[in-house]
């Protein structure tokens, strides 16, 4: 689909983010500080402040998104998850240790941990449903339907498949999970579609994965070979006096290795993002992304430095920078009749993200 046919059908709608780093550094800073004096309870409000700012700075077709979530909703959601799931879980594990020997305890504990892996998917789903329900564009909310448990079991099963295929099922799993999520998402009463468009299918998902997988393994062994032949390895043995030059060589030689693997992975990541974004349609609007390998690589490096040099409180600013790049590399082709879109009738959850918070898999956006 080229620009002309798009223009013929309607317009191209811009997605943009205009966040600047200052306010995000400030929110990150006071969140970390207040977390210290509130035993981390402030985190729910800090996260809410961050999202409110980020959403407002993000526009679709010139209209900003609005985040309507509240800190107290996250707080309550967290407590519900802790008391209904995490405390009974830890209690059961502890009881098993007290009451049974190693074999008996394992008999109770192993299935509980397996269940925990299913819960990770459930938590991702529920957090996402909360996100969408608290996101508005033009006064209309987004919504997520579908089964949280279905998503949890799918995540679990795909995780096992990815493991036994040494990661090779991973990209397919990611696409399947995205499809499961997006094909049950709504903007008001308008459903999202996840379609294997020719543009999406043209993305070299497995080519980039193969390069990343094989390339990383080869690069790693070449590096090991270089280290072994340079004599550094002998220095790392029992010898008490290790030559500092060799240590320097060891670490410095790891930099080009890390960079090379970073390039492989960034390429694959950019391909995956484009593959998923290009599959999305809502009404006659089709999403597209121009995100590239350098975007991912550059952001990975600069965001890591940002977090290190701010002693961690720059993590929100780092997430903003990623979001901003994703938004600014995205566009929507086609036309949409906003007058015809009605408010969502799907009931919004009262509180959110508790389980994700309980499982420590929370993301700020």
């Amino acid at each position: 689909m080229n620009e002309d046919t798009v223009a013929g059908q309607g317009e191209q709608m811009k997605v943009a983010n205009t966040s600047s780093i200052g306010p995000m550094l400030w929110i990150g800073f006071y969140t970390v500080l207040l977390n210290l004096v509130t035993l981390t309870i402030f985190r729910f409000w800090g996260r809410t402040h961050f999202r409110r700012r980020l959403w407002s700075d993000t526009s679709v077709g010139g209209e900003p998104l609005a985040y309507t979530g509240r800190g107290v909703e996250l707080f309550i959601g967290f407590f519900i998850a802790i008391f209904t799931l995490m405390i009974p879980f830890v209690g059961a594990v502890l009881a098993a240790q007290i009451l049974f020997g190693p074999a008996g305890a394992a008999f109770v504990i192993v299935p509980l941990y397996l269940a925990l892996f299913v819960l990770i998917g459930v938590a991702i789903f529920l957090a996402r449903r909360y996100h969408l329900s608290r996101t508005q564009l033009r006064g209309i909310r987004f919504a997520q339907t579908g089964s949280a448990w279905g998503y949890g079991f799918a995540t679990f099963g795909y995780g096992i498949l990815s493991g036994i295929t040494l990661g090779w099922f991973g990209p397919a799993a990611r696409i399947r999970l995205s499809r499961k999520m997006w094909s049950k998402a709504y903007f008001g009463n308008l459903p999202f579609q996840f379609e294997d468009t020719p543009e999406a299918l043209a993305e070299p998902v497995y080519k980039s994965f193969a390069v990343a997988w094989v390339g990383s393994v080869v690069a790693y062994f070449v590096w090991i070979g270089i280290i072994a032949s340079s004599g550094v390895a002998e220095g790392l043995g029992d010898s008490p006096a290790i030559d500092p030059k060799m240590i320097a060589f060891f670490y410095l030689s790891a930099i080009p290795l890390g960079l090379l693997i970073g390039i492989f992975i960034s390429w694959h990541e950019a391909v995956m993002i484009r593959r998923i974004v290009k599959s999305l349609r809502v009404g006659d609007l089709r999403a597209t992304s121009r995100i590239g390998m350098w975007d991912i690589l550059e952001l990975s490096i600069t965001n890591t430095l940002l977090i290190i040099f701010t002693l961690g409180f720059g993590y929100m600013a780092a997430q903003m920078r990623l979001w901003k790049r994703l938004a600014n590399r995205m566009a929507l082709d086609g036309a949409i009749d906003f007058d015809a879109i009605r408010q969502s009738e799907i009931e919004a959850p009262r509180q959110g993200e508790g389980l994700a918070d309980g499982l420590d898999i929370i993301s700020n956006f």
Partner: protein
Amino acid sequence: MSATEGYPAQFFDGQTAAKQDVTVWIEADAIVIEIGRSREVWTYKEIIRLPQTGNPQTGDDIRIRRRRHKGATLILSAPAAAKLRLAAPELFDGLRERRRMATLITGMVAGAGLVGAALFIGVPAASGPLAAATPKSFEMRMGENFAAQITTIFRPCKGADPAIASLQPVLNQLAETGDVGYPIAFQFVRMSAPNAFALPGGQVIATSGLLKLLEDDPDAFVAVLAHELGHVKARDGLKAFYHNAGLGAILEIITGGSGVAQQVVMLGGQMRQMRYNRRQESEADATAADLLIKAGLDPAALARAFIAIQGFSSPGVDDNQAEPTLDKKVLGWLSSHPDTSARIEIAREKARPASASPISDEDWAVITSACKGSND
């Protein structure tokens, strides 16, 4: 309707995504919105302002909505916004929001204080009565299971059964005369750091490192075990378990965490539960001295054990040994047993001639060979 000037504005009604042109009047305590033929009145009390967008095209617009109302959003351009700023400065100065946050944070800090009190005062205070209320049979079962779990990580010494059999009568006698209250189940585990533990319910474990360190001083070895029996008698293992579980539960509730991380802490905690506080340590010393005297042994043996262990963890105090290896530094028994010098002194003060050694040379030869060959 008032006679004041109306401003053009834009409006999302929260029913459809259509943007509507409306006219608004900024009144003394409310905004009146004329949408087609109908009107809405939004009082300043219920209005919230959305964050200013960073978009240069719309950056001067302000967006307002009503608290707890679905979606309806009013977009005011600069002239109307300026009028609103005069009529309802509280929407712009951020005071209301700051005050709300200040109240919230004060509440949270107070809550954190209460939790802190629960952690540092409540849990330690509760662990004693909880332990006292726990049936011994439950404690023994717990100890057996903990011991079984620990010995899946720290392997017991192979072929140590004859050694344990030789040691058992000594332990039984100490426990009986000292009224320890639990049958003692003893094991050797393979670990180079010299250490001994008392788990709940009479489970006692000594490391191969301790046996090796004290292989020339059977009385000192017995004295260390007597010290562990002191912990058994005081139910220190059970108290420490309640203490750790209580701390873990509260921290889990407050900070979240996967439960997985919590679990690691718990499992590790079973080892670390053997870290008792100073009061518990000196009480166990006193019990040990008592047990040793009743068994006709010299309590100064405990002092010798302390000195040997101290020499192991901080060589250079009285010998010219090279730097200790890292694991010795980290796992040093003394790290959990502070103010050793004072304890050595106290043990020495109780010194008296021993009536007999509780272990014959033959038995000691069997005992010291417990971990030979499997010593790491």
